[in-house]
């Protein structure tokens, strides 16, 4: 394979990975904006999305589209339930305690998934045909176009929700200042619940579309959460656009690093870039420097 076609191959792989990281990062951003919490169970939503999708389509034989909607709805409900049972009851806990609770929840979710599905990875047939496509000498699976398309739709939909609907605008207000939002009559607690549900749904979407390519097993969550968290922070915590951009940057860096330099050091390369960016710009790519100075746990 020539260098150009190799580069194209790596680029598409990177974009595929990046789509997933972007969706995970977007999930982090939504909960962070509503509550200031980093939800370390975010990766588990992706894992659950993948495994429930497998259960719906492969075991129950539900048609793809209905199975997809059902999966997203179930995981969304789980996310909301998690908020009600674990986050909602704590009113005066410190931020680090809340974050540790999401960590405990992620262990719990993993335990449940291992109990229900066992430790084996599960596959899923591609959404449309398994025939690979040749493009400028690179071999591409059709599924990646589904991934690009659905990621785009999800991002577009979330953008519309935040900018065009009253509830979305209320959530934005809530992220700027929860107290002020409450003063103008916004029900902050309800929005927190919604943010957990929505970010779980976004995670489930990511899980359902990636499973045909990468398979899915019970302990996939932490690594995805790590990359998504890194992307959310790199983009400048709280900035949706930043999170998506950073997700793609990390995905592409990882894929290029693996292909051109060394597959063993691929994560190290991505992380080193991340560290350097943070050292140069302590508030992330699109974060506000002033705001980041005031942050603490």
């Amino acid at each position: 394979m020539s260098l150009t076609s190799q580069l194209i191959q790596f680029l598409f792989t990177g974009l595929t990975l990046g789509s997933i990281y972007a969706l995970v990062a977007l999930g982090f951003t939504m909960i962070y904006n509503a509550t200031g919490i980093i939800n370390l169970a975010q990766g588990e939503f992706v894992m659950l999305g993948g495994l429930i999708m497998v259960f719906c389509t492969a075991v129950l034989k539900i048609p793809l589209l209905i199975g997809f909607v059902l999966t997203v709805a179930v995981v969304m409900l789980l996310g909301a339930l998690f908020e009600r049972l674990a986050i909602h009851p704590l009113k005066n806990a410190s931020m680090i305690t809340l974050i540790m609770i999401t960590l405990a929840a992620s262990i719990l979710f993993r335990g449940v998934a291992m109990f229900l599905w066992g430790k084996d990875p599960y596959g899923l047939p591609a959404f449309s045909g398994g025939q690979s496509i040749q493009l400028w000498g690179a071999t591409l699976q059709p599924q990646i176009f589904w991934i690009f398309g659905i990621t785009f739709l999800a991002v577009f939909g979330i953008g519309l929700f935040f900018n065009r609907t009253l509830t979305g605008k209320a959530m934005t207000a809530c992220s700027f200042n929860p107290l002020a939002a409450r003063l103008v009559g916004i029900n902050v607690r309800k929005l927190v619940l919604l943010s957990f549900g929505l970010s779980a749904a976004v995670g489930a979407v990511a899980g359902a579309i990636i499973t045909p390519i990468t398979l899915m097993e019970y302990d996939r969550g932490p690594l995805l959460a790590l990359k998504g968290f890194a992307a959310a922070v790199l983009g400048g915590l709280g900035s949706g656009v930043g999170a998506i951009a950073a997700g793609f940057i990390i995905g592409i860096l990882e894929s290029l690093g693996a292909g051109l330099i060394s597959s063993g050091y691929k994560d190290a390369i991505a992380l080193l870039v991340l560290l350097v960016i943070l050292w140069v710009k302590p508030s992330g790519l699109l974060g506000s420097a002033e705001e980041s100075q005031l942050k603490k746990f």
Partner: protein
Amino acid sequence: MGKKDFYPLLFVFLIIAIFPWLVGGNEYYISILIFLGINGIITMGLSLLMGYTGQISLGHAGFFGLGAYSSGILTTQYSIHPLAAFLAGIFLSAIIAFLVGKPTLRLKGHYMAVATLGFGEILFIVFNELSPLTGGPSGLSGIPILTFMGYSLEGARYLYLVWGFVILLLLFSLNVINSRVGRALRAVHGSEIAANAMGVDASRYKVQVFVLSAVYASIAGSLYAHFVTFISPSSFSLMFSILLLMMVVVGGAETIWGALLGAMVLTLLPEYLRGLEDFEVLAYGGILMVVLLFMPQGILLGVRKLFEKKRN
């Protein structure tokens, strides 16, 4: 050290002194207590960094690994005396903590969490990939057991060595906390801007305490390497960094005793749950969740509050 710390310290000292007799020399119980001591050393450092100074680190498994690999590599491949290797590990960790800490500690909250996490992961990858030195993913074996004046330090003797370090570092930490430096650290935790305004050089103190906590982790790493005699990268992964953080939070980050208590709870808990097999992860997650939900400030303060409620 304050007066209120004297009796708990005496209690720890006595328990450790008679422990080998208490369990009738049972190797298993002694080894758990050794692991507890090793984890406790790291969580004490983290408590200084997190609980007192308010800075988070998700990279301390890396410093733990630096200590372990320094001891492991220098003693097996270069036949250097374990004590020299131990000091080399401390030195290396301190230098790296200083170099990384300077730019990283300017970051706040979640940004600092991600930066330290990234740093820890880079070290983890290096442990994996630098196979000529570290043995790569399959690990490094044959690390010698320590000897002292002709006695090989095994079982109860190693327990005393590890807990000797725990008690020394505990004393040192308590002295730091109750000194001018300790008050400065708490001021930085309260508000960095206010601390700076009062003439406390916040960034210098933050780097110092970061280096100190890295040294603690490195000491623990060396002790770990000479105890298990085989090390592999999986012991120094992000999961361990997170587990350490969990120990500090579960025990109570605000006091050094809480950090030790957290190390104890989370070292013992998996041992108790081992019989549950497939349910282990489930039970572990569930218990952590319940503890955090009902004692958000950690077990130490939670239990203290319960007692106070009863008294009133």
